[in-house]
């Protein structure tokens, strides 16, 4: 039963990942990120993502504030950062929105900025939710797998 559950969870996770890929929320970079996770750093992905979420939240708050102050230059800097980190974890859609956002800031198009910010927040929330979901599944899977086949799992 437990092993079956592990398989199910594995499939779930893959399905979710596939879905996210299909929607363009994530790209290959995320896979590479996952590849970096090994015995040496078993929580590498979640660590990175935690940092990412932490940073991004800060950036988003800052962006909102800057948009009110209409400091487009600073916004550009922030967006560059946001874009960099997003592309590092492979959050493709967030990156794309960032690109659009940056273009809007370059044109000092306030309406476009506002719209882009809203979209960015939306995309970010969506990504966050989905990744949380993913982690939950992964944790469950790790638990299940760990209970059942601790040795084999390590070998694999």
């Amino acid at each position: 039963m437990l092993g079956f559950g592990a398989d199910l969870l594995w499939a779930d996770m893959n399905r979710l990942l596939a879905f996210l890929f299909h929607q363009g929320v994530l790209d290959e970079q995320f896979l590479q990120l996952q590849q970096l996770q090994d015995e040496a750093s078993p929580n590498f992905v979640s660590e990175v993502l935690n940092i990412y979420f932490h940073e991004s939240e800060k950036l988003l708050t800052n962006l909102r504030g800057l948009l009110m102050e209409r400091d487009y230059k600073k916004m550009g800097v922030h967006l560059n950062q946001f874009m960099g980190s997003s592309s590092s974890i492979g959050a493709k859609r967030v990156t794309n929105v960032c690109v659009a956002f940056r273009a809007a800031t370059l044109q000092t198009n306030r309406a476009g900025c506002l719209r882009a910010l809203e979209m960015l927040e939306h995309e970010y929330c969506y990504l966050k939710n989905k990744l949380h979901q993913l982690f939950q599944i992964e944790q469950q899977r790790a638990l299940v797998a760990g209970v059942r086949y601790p040795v084999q799992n390590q070998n694999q």
Partner: protein
Amino acid sequence: MFCSSWDLPRIFRIVTLVNLARMSVNRRLSASNGRLPPNMKSWKVNEPLHGTNYLKTCRRKLLLLWFFGFVAVGTVWFILSFNSKYLVSKENEAICEERARVLLQRYNVSRKEIHALASLFYGSDQILSNCIDERRLKMLLSSGMISTPQLTCPGNQESQKEYICVAETVETIEQCPILDDYDQTRLELSFPSKNHVSLASHSALSTDLVSYLLRGKNIVQSWELRASAIWDHLSSSNFVRGCWVLIGIIMSCFCLLWRSQKQKLVQGHPAAQKKQMQGLARGPSKSAGRWRKKLLVIFVSLGIIGSFWLFWHLNMDIMQRREEMLANMCDERARMLQDQFNVSMNHVHALAILVSTFHHGKHPSAIDQKIFGEYTESTAFERPLTSGVAYALKVLHSDRMHFEEQHGWTIKKMETENEALVQDCIPENLDPAPIQDEYAPVIFAQETVSHIVSIDMMSGKEDRENILRARASGKGVLTSPFKLLKSNHLGVVLTFAVYDTNLPLDATPEQRIEATVGYLGASYDVPSLVDKLLHQLASKQTIVVNVYDTTNASAPITMYGTDVTDTGLLHISSLDFGDPLRKHEMHCRFKQRPPLPWTAINASVGVLVITLLLGHIFYAAINRIAKVEDDYRQMSELKGRAEAADVAKSQFLATVSHEIRTPMNGVLGMLQMLMHTELDENQMDCAQTAHNSGKDLISVINEVLDQAKIEAGKLELEAVTFDPRAILDEVLSRFSEKSKEKEIELAVYASNQVPEVVIGDPKRFRQIITNLVGNSLKFTHDKGHVFVSVHLANEVKNPLHIMNAVLREGLNLNQDISNRTSDTLSGFPVCNKWKSWAHFKKLSSTNEPEIIQLLVIVEDTGIGIPTDAQSCIFAPFMQADSSTSRTYGGTGIGLSVSKCLVDLMGGEIGFVSEPGIGSTFSFTGTFRKGGRTSLDAMWQNNLSGSEFLGLRALVVDRRKIRAEVTRYHLQRLGMSVDVTYSLNSACSCLSNTCNMSIPTQLAMILIDKDAWSWDKEGSFLYAIKKHRKNGIKGDPINLPKIFLLATHLSANEHDELNSFGIIDDILMKPLWLSSLIRSYRESLGIVKKQVNRKNVMKLGNLLMHKQILLVDDNAVNRKVAEGVLQRYGTIVTTVESGKAALKFLKPPHNFDACFMDLQMPEMDGFEATRQIRNLESEANEKIACGQASAEMFGNISYWHIPVLAMTADATQGSNEECRKCGMDDYVSKPFDEEQLYMAMERVFNSDS
């Protein structure tokens, strides 16, 4: 007569005008029915696109409308004016004729009268005065005519008036009985005036001539007159029409002005114009259509209203004219009747005076019954209307007895109340008159009424009243009409009183009564009077005349005429018979009801028809416009839909590509992981190939996506340096498996004139070749070859000076068809490749030395392309036929993408194909010559190694081309190659070289399997073996290695060949560089560079235990990069700002490399690097100067830490900037493993 002469030109003009109008209508009709004329078409097409054009067309339409309006109005007006004139003139004609006749008749009559009365009477003062008036009038007229002829004939109406005036004068002249000599003048008078009339209205020459002849003297005046008349005629007839035209022109001008102003206004505001344009783009057609329809409806309704109005107008005109005519005729009749009556009355009066003179004035009386009877009988013609005249004497009652005795008869009473003068009864039978105050017995009577002698007129009631009134007034008095017995006609009795003394003119009635001695009565037969009169007049048939006595207005008594049938029009003229108490009226009616007004009907129907016709034309045109607009709308809608579909297609492609990409990532990842494990060479190769193929697949998918980009024109080519030969190798390696499977010989060749490095887009270049080769392989089965060759376009410029062997072979094909089988790569016939670029226009057209054109030829021996499908081979998603895709699969996008790419590269693509033989595709691409970069040199060296440099090889091949291909590959390795075409010659070659020194000795012999003849192996093997033996003494390495080249070998053959022990290895074609190297190395027993392709391991080796400083402000990036680098065993230190990095990198330090993010707050990567370099140079200077010992700086004499930029967008620009500020290299962010490896290798290799 005048009418006809006037009519002809007029009618002709009308006809021509109508014809013109019809012609124009016809032309419109044909234009609208048939194809639109080009200009119309063009503006129709442009209409919705250009607002200004649209306005213009509106204006044009308006003008057109105006034009038609003019035509219509003009026609109507013409008809109208023509009609009225025509009618008027005709009428005038009739009237004048009639009058002339009447006058003549009457004139004759009056002459007779004059003759009859001349001896008897002197003229009365009334007549005299008339005459005088007449004369004066005539004088006035003639003088006026002579002195101011212009004034006399200003126009139709006036002339008519004048004419009437003249006629009246003439009439009055008639009444002047004495003026005989006036006849001539009157005639003269009437003729010129007639002339004027005719001149004014018709301007006819003939009449002019008549007038000229008649008058003689007034030539000049007549000319003047005519000119003025013509002018007047023109002005009067054209004035109104001219007015209309003028109004029309003004209106249209106004319209134009208004429109242009509006347009200007619109143009003045570009925004507004834009808005309008936008509005026009969608709305215009509809609103315009509605507008047009409205206009049409207005036009048609106007036309209908106009035609009705026209009808009404013409009808009214006709009616009015009819009425006028009736009035004229009626008045004339009435007047004539009156005149005649008056004349008769005068005669009776004269008779009365006669009686008073000769009966009462003389004693004894000069008149008795007999004389009276005779006289009256003989002068009856004077009173043609009186049936009889009688004279009654006034007899007082006191004198009755005396009177009766004197005459011998008693005064008799009128028997009945039926007051008739003429009775059948004999007077003797009548009763004597009752006793009265006075009597009026008839004493004299005309023969016709002699029976009334002795009858007392006072006894009749009517007569009595009459008599009383007559003697009181002294004038003629009429009775009310009653029936005359004899004729049974209605009649009236006229009574004159005869006075015995000359009464003063202002005598009172009492005096008159006193002076009365008798009464003269005359009975008038009214019907015969009127009949006679009417007989004299023309057109008596047309009208019905009734005469009434309307003394008692409520009960008029009919005096003449039949029962009244109401025929519509009625004209009443009052008659004055000289009796103020009696009132008479003449009622005239037309006999027939008015005929249908055909002219009016025709004209209005004509206008209606024209209007409807125009309406129909416009309706058709509008419909057509609407239809075209509708079509246009539909088209644009369809276009929109098609575009939407295109977008959807692109989206679909994107989605599908993504779907494929996602699992492919997994596959690639797995492969990569597989390659990380321990694999032997072969496995590695497999995995590598799989990985590469997967990458290719991904790239192909990307290229499919590119199709959309290309279609949108958004694709841009890169400009990087690349080696076209390497591209060929890549293509070869990709398809080698497939060609092996299909047992097709696959070969690549590049002419030695092709530069080693060119600048262009290698990906696209490869993509095109891949597409073509893929297609060729797909459609070639189990035989033949696919051969890719690259040449400079200049090489094929002049077919006569071909130096290149491969190209020459192709050319020979052209000349010698019989020999073609042996000359190709596989021996199968191919198409003439020269034809494939025969249509290229831009072939080597550039003369710049830096620009080169590469010509790539891909020839195959496949099934070929059907002739009918060759035209659409480059259309996207198009395959030769649908069965092709079933048999071979594929999307058919390849060639279209290739064509697009070739176009982008500034080249051309073409092909020649023969079904059953094969196809040859060729394309050109423009590139720039590139200098060899260190990167390429390094790669080249790395791959080929130096072990082949300067070695000699012998190629044994029967086929020239194949030998050339092999030679090409070997030459690329730096070997010198000899080619022999058979083993025999190879032997001789061997024996030649065996004695030579080692460097010139053959390093390898490559023998094609076809050349490997088992019969002749003896000598060859012998030679080899001899060499082997010799070689034992020497270095075995220096022995020539013998390779067999084969496309496909069965296992048996393989074993057999191996068993000989001579052949070192069998090289399976396709031949390419790396496989050649590998085989040679394997044959040498050197297994080097196992790790060569294992980048990861290499990276690991490179980076193991290296100290690396990672500078990035972004925590996430930092973490990720750290993770990646740690995988390769590096020791990573991360800092988050440039300043922190400076602290770490201040010499001395232990870092081997630094990864620097470019975009950082405070101090960006460039600045940080610059400062690092500054620090280093300081340290270096110190060391160099000996200020500080090398120990101080960690025993390193020269400090230079490799700084690698990390950048999200690795463009050329940032790359250069990186190098400018002292960075060594750059890597993209996130890390790409291969790129990272390359960069690290460069950095550390150059370091070490």
